[in-house]
């Protein structure tokens, strides 16, 4: 019996002793740290798994506060926890107009002449560095999927040699916009239904020579739509994305676009999807 008591006694003594030392040390050696780091550390799971690539949660918290890492890099945190951290640090971005990306080109494999026998890295930026890329249209989608790879949300699909954005997946982060060497991708208000799928500023005959679905600047859509819904820029027409009344779907029927580059997002997607199946 005494044995057990002795063990408990010894452990208790040692425990109290060590506790006191640590307590005193903590007081003696107190260091002022950024209180936010502690706050974030508390919000993190605290399992010190190292899955974020940092050495434990406290280090990760420090990196969040200094802006080295985004909070969502933690593989353990739930979405709520991530947003709680973001809220605590005030780093969330209050985007008023929700935007999605759109690739303004309709020149898929069937529509646009793919000119040359390209031999090299399958990446748009790389391809555009070699004689401007293998497509005859110098302003068309190269179809090698740099944007799709850049998209962290898998919202861009390569269909029939053309990048197509899935609106329900796109959060409008703009990573694809940056990466496209031909600047075909635009961030537009989510509610936009209709786009002119052409970005080439060339004259109509030059465009038609290389592509069947180029905007030839006939302005039928401009006439069919209300004032200010479309804007003529050079030799092509663009949807006026800044305006308050975006063109409705009826415009397409009314305009009867002769080349078929005026499309809704949905029909554009379906055309490309089916075109890929046929071939």
């Amino acid at each position, binding site marked *: 019996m*005494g*044995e057990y008591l*002795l*063990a408990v006694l*010894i*452990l208790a003594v*040692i*425990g109290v002793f*060590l*506790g006191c*030392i*640590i307590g005193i*040390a*903590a007081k*003696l*050696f*107190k*260091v002022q740290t950024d209180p936010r780091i502690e706050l974030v550390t508390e919000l993190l799971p605290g399992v*010190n*798994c*190292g*899955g974020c*690539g*940092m*050495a*434990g949660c*406290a*280090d990760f918290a*420090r990196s969040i506060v200094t802006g080295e890492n985004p909070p969502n890099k933690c593989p353990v945190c739930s979405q709520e926890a991530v947003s709680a951290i973001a809220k605590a640090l005030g780093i969330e971005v209050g985007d008023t107009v929700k935007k999605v990306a759109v690739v303004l080109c309709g020149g898929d494999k069937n529509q646009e002449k793919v000119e040359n026998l390209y031999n090299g890295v399958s990446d748009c930026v790389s391809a555009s560095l070699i004689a401007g890329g293998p497509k005859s249209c110098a302003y068309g989608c190269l179809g090698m999927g740099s944007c799709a790879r850049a998209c962290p949300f898998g919202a861009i699909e390569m269909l029939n040699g053309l990048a197509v954005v899935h609106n329900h997946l796109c959060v409008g982060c703009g990573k694809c916009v940056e990466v496209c060497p031909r600047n075909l991708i635009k961030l537009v208000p989510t509610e936009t239904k209709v786009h002119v799928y052409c970005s080439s500023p060339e004259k109509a005959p030059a465009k038609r020579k290389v592509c069947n679905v180029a905007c030839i600047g006939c302005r039928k859509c401009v006439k069919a739509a209300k004032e200010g819904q479309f804007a003529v820029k050079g030799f092509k027409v663009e949807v006026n994305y800044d305006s308050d009344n975006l063109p409705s779907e009826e415009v397409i029927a009314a305009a009867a676009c002769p080349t078929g580059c005026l499309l809704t997002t949905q029909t554009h997607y379906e055309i490309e999807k089916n075109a890929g199946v046929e071939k």
Partner: protein
Amino acid sequence: MSETSHYLQITIGAVLVYNFVLARFLGICPFLGVSKRLDTAAGMSGAVIFVMTLASLITSTVYNYLLKKPITLFGHTTNLDFLQIVLFIVVIASLVQLVEIMLQKLSSPLYRALGIYLPLITTNCAVMGVATLSAKSNYSVLDSTIFGFFSGLGFALALILFSSIRERLELSQVPGPFQGMSIALITAGILAMAFLGFSGLC
């Protein structure tokens, strides 16, 4: 001769033959967790060496002077050996905590280099392993301190080797199902096979 071979056995054995990670399979958690980047692995290695050495020093002192021989207290004579694990845990945990607190205040650069890894090590089984192993082998305080240091060195060797391989694997196209932890474990397995060649050195 015997003195030299004794220390040779402790050192070479701890680093190569009975490598904590690749032969004893202790401390696998930080081995896999903190081996993604070479620089973090190096920091972690430093911390492990430091803690292992210090922990073996303290625990072997505790073991040799408190637990090994029966002690008499309040008229009871008891062998306190059964308290070994509990005591080691308490001692190591508070030791690491103490070191962390002091480092933060006293040496900011050292804290930044090692300190952030310290919380990861408090419960590392390699540290506990080094304490219990030296107790089991009946090492003196000096012996076990050396043993602790070289065990840490062995851990560092394995960790740094492994992280450099993993950095290279980052650039290769590992097939989908094997990406991440599974390829890491396979690599560790092959590495362990290579370390098997050292068996019998001491």
